């Protein structure tokens, strides 16, 4: 769950990337010299990461998923695309220093419209290692060329050099969460409420993302390519765009809800999206403690046990840096990696509330997850 899903105030640079509002009348456009309504300020959903996933696939492979384009409606599924000029990256740390050692990089070609109005794009995937993996750049060894899967078509699968498979295209959004209820919960919490029934009263039991789609990048990679079976690794994703002849990172995401829960101001969310994981403890530590304190106050007021300061410190150190940790080959779900079917919100609610709040009332995705690659359900279509 990304900041934009929860607050709709996406990163400033993300906003800049799609901030295409403008002012009123050009001086010569209207004879009456009247107001001319400008396009709406809007973010570019094509570079707005919704979620990432990492999960065991059999004994020798691991699935990596990066989703963008939140809230794509059935009618818009046909024309949903990745941003051609953007650089999508999945970063992997294999030695626990929160610095990327491996990067899978994806770029997309121009949008081609098919006879039924659906669109597709070519894509290329590169794999970079070492120092090159740490930066945001279009470098590395090409490991796949492919074509996105247009809406309504069977998945097109590209083979990866060295083994594995790749997919890109529109899919059902695998995320399930009562965002409407959570937002009311958080608003009341930040307003100082300690009344549990009031705090929890806004949950609706409905999955806000049911019936909507995202644009997915799915990779099945050999375990050997990401440190080997049994290794503890960390995953995060970034999106960068070209500005002044440089790649500028405008999006970052790892664990669900970190930016949402712990960064309360827009400026904080914006800054977090531009940082690297190694910056997280310095940037976010106090926010994590403050949030845990606020929740602790609610728990205390209701006669429930709260975390001790030492425990809060421990949780902050687990959650930061914001990396989705995973033991390669391990079948356990979130917090070990993240499988699409994992109820991450329940897990995080439980973690944050010392086990006293265990569910948002939404426990499964609206579409079943297929067992075959790319493991995400097809898109909702009109």
């Amino acid at each position, binding site marked *: 769950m990304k900041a934009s899903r929860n607050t709709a105030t996406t990163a400033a640079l993300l906003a800049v990337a799609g901030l295409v509002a403008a002012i009123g009348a050009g001086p010569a456009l209207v004879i009456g010299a009247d107001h001319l309504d400008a396009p709406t300020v809007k973010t570019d959903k094509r570079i707005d990461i919704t979620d990432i996933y990492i999960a065991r696939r059999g004994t020798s492979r691991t699935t990596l998923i990066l989703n963008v384009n939140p809230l794509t409606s059935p009618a818009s599924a046909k*024309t949903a695309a990745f941003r051609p000029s953007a650089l999508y990256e999945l970063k992997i740390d294999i030695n626990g220093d929160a610095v990327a050692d491996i990067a899978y990089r994806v770029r997309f070609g*121009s949008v081609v419209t098919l006879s039924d109005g659906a669109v597709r794009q070519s894509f290329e995937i590169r794999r970079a290692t070492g120092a090159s993996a740490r930066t945001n750049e279009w470098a590395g060894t090409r490991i796949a060329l492919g074509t996105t899967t247009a809406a309504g078509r069977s998945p097109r699968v590209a083979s990866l050099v060295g083994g594995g498979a790749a997919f890109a295209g529109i899919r059902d959004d695998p995320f399930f969460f009562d965002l409407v209820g959570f937002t009311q919960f958080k608003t009341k919490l930040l307003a100082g409420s300690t009344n549990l029934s009031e705090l929890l009263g806004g949950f609706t039991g409905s999955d806000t993302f049911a019936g909507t789609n995202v644009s997915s990048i799915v990779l099945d990679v050999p375990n050997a390519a990401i440190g080997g079976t049994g290794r503890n690794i960390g995953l995060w994703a970034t999106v960068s765009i070209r500005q002044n002849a440089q790649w500028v990172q405008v999006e970052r995401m790892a664990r669900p809800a970190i930016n949402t829960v712990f960064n309360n101001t827009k400026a904080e969310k914006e800054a977090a999206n531009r940082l690297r994981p190694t910056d997280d403890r310095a940037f976010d530590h106090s926010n994590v403690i403050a949030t845990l304190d606020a929740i602790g106050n609610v728990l205390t007021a209701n006669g429930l046990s709260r975390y001790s300061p030492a425990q809060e410190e421990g949780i902050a150190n687990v959650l930061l840096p914001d990396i989705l940790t995973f033991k390669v080959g391990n079948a356990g779900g979130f917090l070990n990696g993240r499988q699409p079917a994992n109820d991450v919100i329940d897990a995080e609610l439980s973690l944050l509330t010392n086990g006293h709040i265990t569910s948002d009332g939404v426990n499964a995705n609206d579409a079943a997850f297929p067992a075959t690659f790319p493991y995400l359900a097809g898109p909702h279509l009109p």
Partner: protein
Amino acid sequence: MTTFAVATRRLPPRAIGILGAMVAIAVLSQLVAAAPKPAAPRVAIANGPALDAGLAGADNPSADAPGLDRIRADIAFWSGRVQRQPKDFVSATEWAAVEIELARATGDLAAWDLAERATAQALDANPGYGAAVGYRGTVLLALHRFADARDMARPILVDRPNDPFALSTLGDASLDLGAYVDARAAYEALDKVAHSAASMVRLGRLAYLDGHPDEAVRLTRQAADAADAEGAQGERLAWYRCQLGALLESTGDPRGAGAAFSSALVDDPRSWLARVGLARLEAAAGRLDDGIGHLSQAIAIVPLPDTVARRSDLYELRDHAGDAKLAANDRATVEAIARLAGANGVVYDRTLAVYLANHGLEPARAVAIAEKELATRTDVDGYDAYAWALLAAGRAADADVAMTRALALGTRDARLLYHAGMIAAALHDGPRARQLLTSALGLDATFDPLQARRARETLATLP
């Protein structure tokens, strides 16, 4: 001679009443949708042969040209979700977004109303929700509720001083309210926190109003390029190109303007703004048939009174058999559209006042409308409209006072200078009238075919 024809079908000139215009929206949109798409611009990216092949033509905007069917399906989808869960601020915000899309594509004022309702519902469920704030700002500005837009943005900026949505809303509202110092502060802050097409085009507008057209062109050109680089598509990208086209036209570069408008039509085949721009250029070049053709297409897409009034002028200028009747029909349509706009008719008030003054119709009514607008909206164009209406009503001295206010920023605009010149002429200030009218025609000799002709005729009579 440069021509500005584009590869889309043209409707034959014909009388078009308000109902006809509404029907024609649907008809022409189908024609336009069926027209072959122009070749996408090619973008070279040097990243190795395989990728080059794949990425050439990246960001093809025509691939995302708006489809009214898709917009209407989205409206049904998101509004249905809001109906089922009234607290669903996410769906309410998406609903607002697609209502705005519909409003911009068709000029349907009812869609603005629904967008207003949707944003209100989203913000009721989640106060301060950034995207909803942005959309609400857009809606309020579109409905000419400038003070409401300003008053919504200000408290948000107290909490989040760098919020780009609130900054752009505050700046836009201030601009229309004539609070140029506030507008500049907001735009400069926006540019600082989010240097972008959005900030540059706004600063360009201010530069134009401040009498620095070259700077305005530079900023607006950068904005159009930036919008493309930022991934703007369809109507959004076309809008930027049209702003550039209009500026180039008004600063004596019709060839550049034509390229900008034609490019806008590639981005968005439904761009009525581009068609109006091309019509202006064709008319300025004396090709009245082509100008009328472009305007007819624009009217079929969005029947705005501005455009209909402009076409009536071209009919009058062409003066073929039957043109007088066509012009009269168009003038009746202008009034009908404003009348049918109902409670939202206020959005056409200024247009109507200038239209009446341009054609010497109901001068007292023109003054009353312009005066009413000035009560809440004291911007450059507001004073200009008032001055022009006062002159039409024979109140040249009052008009001169209002015109002085309109020119207070030093704006170098042919239409403003023409109005000022005509006022000076009415006050028998020959030298000043000559200087102003000469300046107006020097800036843009064909700023408005009918009015430019009047300017030349008046110049010829000056001592």
